[in-house]
């Protein structure tokens, strides 16, 4: 111990502290400078021959691993989009809270997710046409008879993914119930499902496609609480909202619409989400 003490740093006086703050604020000031470079993102992607997609691999049935291989709707849908654009697709797996900051830092071209289109998000990001319905519902314990309809969560503890639109929807719904609902926020949904199995919470709020898949996989553990409590909403992929990104999003939009028309999208929905879904084509106004 004596030969390598973990010494207290006596020199960390206020002066150094304030200096540090100064240099940090300098870094911030630099960060605020607008980026000068103007380019066409579609051209860049085509030049590189590769579209980099940020996603989270813990979002079945859209993205998940099976025996170490990526599976789900996203992989197959993007494979089609890649064909349309004539580029290869490269997926990058990140924990959900890192995905949007990563997009803004230009770590990848688009975000798969997919994520629910909301008004606030539409102001910040550029969405591609929706690919699935995302209305929020509850999943509860298979043998829990106390939860038969969404209103039964009144006075109980419920979970949702941290920083998700589903969480916001749940909060809004909970506020309408007679008794206070305790809401736990999970870094990823799977921990919420685990806690549901451990009976710490009575239900988890998530979009219908996700919980339908989970309940189908583990019918002995979970059941979907019908009907969905949320307003009708949709899942979509998204990109950055700046001038250079416009060309790329437009190209993807065209490709999705094409898949819409020729039935490829419907086939994928049926394969992964259990049923065809009626989703708006092109731009639409989200309900919230």
């Amino acid at each position, binding site marked *: 111990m*004596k*030969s*390598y*003490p*973990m*010494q207290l*740093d006596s*020199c*960390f006086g206020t*002066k*150094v*502290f304030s*200096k*540090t703050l100064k240099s940090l604020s300098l*870094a911030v000031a*630099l*960060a605020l*400078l607008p*980026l000068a470079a103007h380019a066409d993102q579609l051209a860049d992607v085509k030049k590189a021959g590769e579209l980099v997609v*940020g996603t989270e*691999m*813990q979002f*079945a049935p859209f993205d*998940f*691993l*099976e*025996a*170490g291989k990526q*599976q789900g709707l996203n992989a197959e849908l993007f494979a089609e989009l890649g064909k349309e654009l004539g580029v290869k697709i490269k997926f*990058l*797996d*990140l*924990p959900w*809270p*890192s995905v949007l*900051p*990563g997009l*803004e*830092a*230009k*770590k990848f071209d688009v975000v798969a997710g997919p994520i629910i289109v909301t008004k606030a998000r539409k102001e910040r990001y550029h969405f591609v046409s929706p690919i699935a319905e995302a209305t929020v519902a509850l999943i509860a314990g298979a043998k829990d008879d106390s939860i038969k309809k969404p209103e039964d969560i009144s006075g109980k503890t419920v979970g949702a993914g941290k920083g998700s639109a589903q969480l916001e929807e749940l909060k809004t719904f909970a506020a309408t119930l007679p008794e206070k609902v305790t809401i736990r926020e999970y870094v*990823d949904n*799977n921990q919420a*499902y*685990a806690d549901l199995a451990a009976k710490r919470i009575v239900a988890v709020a998530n979009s219908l496609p996700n919980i339908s898949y989970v309940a189908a*996989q*583990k019918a002995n*553990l979970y059941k979907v609480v019908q009907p969905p409590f949320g307003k009708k909403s949709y899942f979509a992929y998204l990109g950055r909202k700046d001038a250079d990104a416009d060309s790329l999003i437009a190209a993807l939009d065209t490709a999705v619409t094409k898949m819409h028309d020729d039935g490829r999208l419907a086939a994928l929905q049926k394969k992964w989400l259990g049923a065809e879904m009626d989703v708006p084509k092109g731009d639409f106004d989200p309900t919230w």
Partner: protein
Amino acid sequence: MFDWPLLQQNAPLLLDALWVTLQVSIAALAIGFVIGIVVGSLRLSPVPLLRRLGGAYIFVFRGIPLLVQLLFIYYFLPRIGLPNVSPTMAAIIGLSLAAGAYIAEIMRGGFLAIPGGQLEAAGLLGLSTSQMLLRIRVPQAVRLTLPALVNEMILLIKASSLVSVVGLADLTRTAQNLAASDYMFIQDYLMLAGFYCLINVPLAYCGSLLERRLKEQTA
């Protein structure tokens, strides 16, 4: 409650991920070691400004959680015009910078443990400051601090469980992904713990062996 076929299926995937974890940890230890020597000797420099500089480095990189540092490097440095690095590079840079702060403190302790007379003797023989650092101080300090450095390696391997926030599929992230699709949370996490032990328990054993040997030599 254990599902053996699944375990056999997942084990090779985790083994691959363990390799990723080891690669970034070893790279970070090597780079962190160099940073540690520089910052550690700055902390002992006779020039007050240099001492301050070393102190500030340690203050920042030891005071901010690694998770936040990693996010900063990955997402915000590119915005201020610094190169847009790959996930692997971001993980290595983040881990090295933090490891450098800890190793600097270890090395400072090691440098201080070298009797001053030795340096006076070296100075009288005409060795330059850098020669003294590389030929006399570093070799001895490393010998003295080897157990602490092994310990630091263990801490680094554990700390690397956070690198998934920059998009690197390390051991922890892989296990989490597996758990998310097979819903065997406990089994997958126990396996994850087992894989960390696979590396760290032998390392810890080496560390205590080295510590005992050092104690015998100096006693």
